[in-house]
């Protein structure tokens, strides 16, 4: 019965770490702007596809991945500058529809630029599995976990030790108060979209050697990331990361023990049940309504 458990745990944690990173991207933007960015999945797709494209241009793998992440960060910042900022003051639902429109644009652009084929990125350090505790661990899985932890630590440091990070937290807490003490809320929004693009692209690049990538993988990955941050409690970066891991592990065990066809359904059923019992997510604080 428990035969596959260690293996499922490893693949669940790998996939889940990537979901967590994607959820982290959602959280960055949500915290400064209050918008759920439906183009987040497209950032992930761009991370993978651009890495493959840069590699094809002859760049070494690490440079290609880094370039892809930076390019996606620029895409994120441009998106904020061109489509979100002019919208200031409009209802949040309009901004969400804009992000849906941008996701269609990015997907269409990627299809034209890179074609419709599914492509793979080579594993960062070989494919010889490491055997441990009855599970075969792909070296790439370790990369995924390591990069996720590194990015989490970097963000933690950024928020707690830099002025800019603290300014961003202030925006998340109270926009008006933040601007009163001289923080440029608009610049923080721009920055959050850039960082979000970077994180999303990193998730896409580290996941691409395991799951392959194509111009249309963004939607499902984006949904999983959204699910991860709702599961963890919207607005909390560490909740998003934890939510991602929980989601990934649930999915892997569901696929292994129940049915692989219902893999995605399994994760969402658990999410629904959790929301029904605890409407603010695992680590979310219950909000206070103003009348």
């Amino acid at each position, binding site marked *: 019965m428990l035969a596959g458990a260690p293996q499922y745990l490893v693949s669940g944690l790998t996939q889940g770490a990537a979901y967590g990173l994607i959820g982290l991207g959602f959280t960055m933007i949500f915290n400064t702007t209050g918008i759920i960015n439906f183009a987040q999945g497209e950032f992930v797709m761009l991370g993978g596809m651009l890495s493959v494209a840069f590699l094809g241009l002859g760049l070494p793998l690490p440079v290609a991945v880094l370039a892809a992440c930076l390019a996606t960060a620029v895409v994120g910042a441009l998106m904020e500058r061109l489509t979100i900022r002019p919208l200031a003051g409009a*209802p949040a639902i309009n901004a969400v*529809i804009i992000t849906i*429109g941008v996701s269609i644009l990015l*997907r269409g652009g990627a299809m034209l630029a890179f074609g419709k084929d599914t492509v793979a990125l080579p594993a960062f350090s070989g494919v010889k599995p490491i055997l441990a505790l009855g599970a075969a661990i792909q070296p790439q899985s370790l990369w995924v976990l390591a990069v996720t932890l590194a990015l989490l630590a970097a963000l933690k440091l950024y928020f707690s030790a830099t002025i800019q990070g603290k300014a961003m937290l202030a925006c998340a807490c109270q926009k008006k108060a933040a601007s009163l003490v001289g923080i440029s809320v608009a610049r923080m929004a721009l920055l959050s979209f850039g960082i979000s693009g970077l994180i999303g692209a990193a998730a896409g690049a580290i996941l691409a050697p395991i799951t392959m990538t194509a111009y249309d993988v963004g939607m499902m990955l984006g*949904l999983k990331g959204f699910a991860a941050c709702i599961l963890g409690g919207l607005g909390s970066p560490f909740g998003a990361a934890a939510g991602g891991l929980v989601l990934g592990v649930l999915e892997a065990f569901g696929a292994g023990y129940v*049915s692989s066809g219902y893999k995605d*359904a399994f994760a969402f059923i658990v*999410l629904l049940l959790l*929301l029904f019992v605890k409407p603010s997510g695992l680590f979310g604080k219950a909000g206070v309504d103003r*009348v």
Partner: protein
Amino acid sequence: MKRPLLGRAIVQAGLFLALLLAVPYVLPNDYYLSICILGCLSAIIAVGLNLLMGYAGQISLGHAAFYGIGAYVTAICTTRLGLPIPVGMAAGVGLSMVVAWVMAEPILKLKGHYLAMATLGFGIIVAIVFNEAVDVTGGPSGFVGIPRLSLGGFAFDSDRSYYNLVAVVLSLVVLASLNLMRSRTGRALRALHVSEKAAASLGIDIAAHKRFVFVLSAGLAGLAGVLYAHYLSFVAPASFGFGFSVQLVVMVVLGGMANVWGSVVGALFLTALPEALREFEDIDILVYGAILVLTIMYLPDGLTGGLGRLFRKLRRVGKGAAR
């Protein structure tokens, strides 16, 4: 209480029906008629979704699921179970409403992004079931052999007759919605949109009103679903996925929130747009995305809101010129 606006709603819906019925006479061929049918079906769902979203302020990112439940239930009833078509249709609409009734209690307690996520999750679960329950739904390759619609001895077997039927149904839905929103219930829904606590303090039963409008909008989606199944005589899971749920929300917002006509305009516009962009071949998706972004950026209150402003501006300019 006197309802002076009822008469106006009947006139508006009547004119709308006349307009819809005139459309086939100006269309070059039947291909466009089938797009019109699909546009009207989307409009039926969008009007229902707007009651939920625009008026009562409760977002649903899973409405395609109710559309699919309607379509699959009538498909199964009329083929596998050999039931008469009206029974299948009633079962399709009925079951989507029952599912909504059951879901309403836990799901509508959630707010904002959590509600969006929960409805999204529900929609995805249902879509996966359509895909995976191969014995019941035919799986990814779809369900074939659904009978074309015939009611009371009259067979709606041509696109023209089916279009007329769908146009009548859409007009009735619009009429009913216009009236509902002018009723006591409609005002209660708007009140709870603004502030649930304030509405509750006025004695409005928040939970009951939310449930009512959720079940109603699910029923309308189910109605569109059964009409869709008996029109195409074939259904496949791809039509009822997350993508279509999102598109329905876009129809409502793009058309103009809390405006029944807005949803109709949004649905027809978004159904026609991909067809109009056909000639752009591969870049059509880029143009589609760009139009979506630009429309929302420059018409924040939707197509109908934008048209209204343009109209008022023109009138002001006209008056100025006359003086």
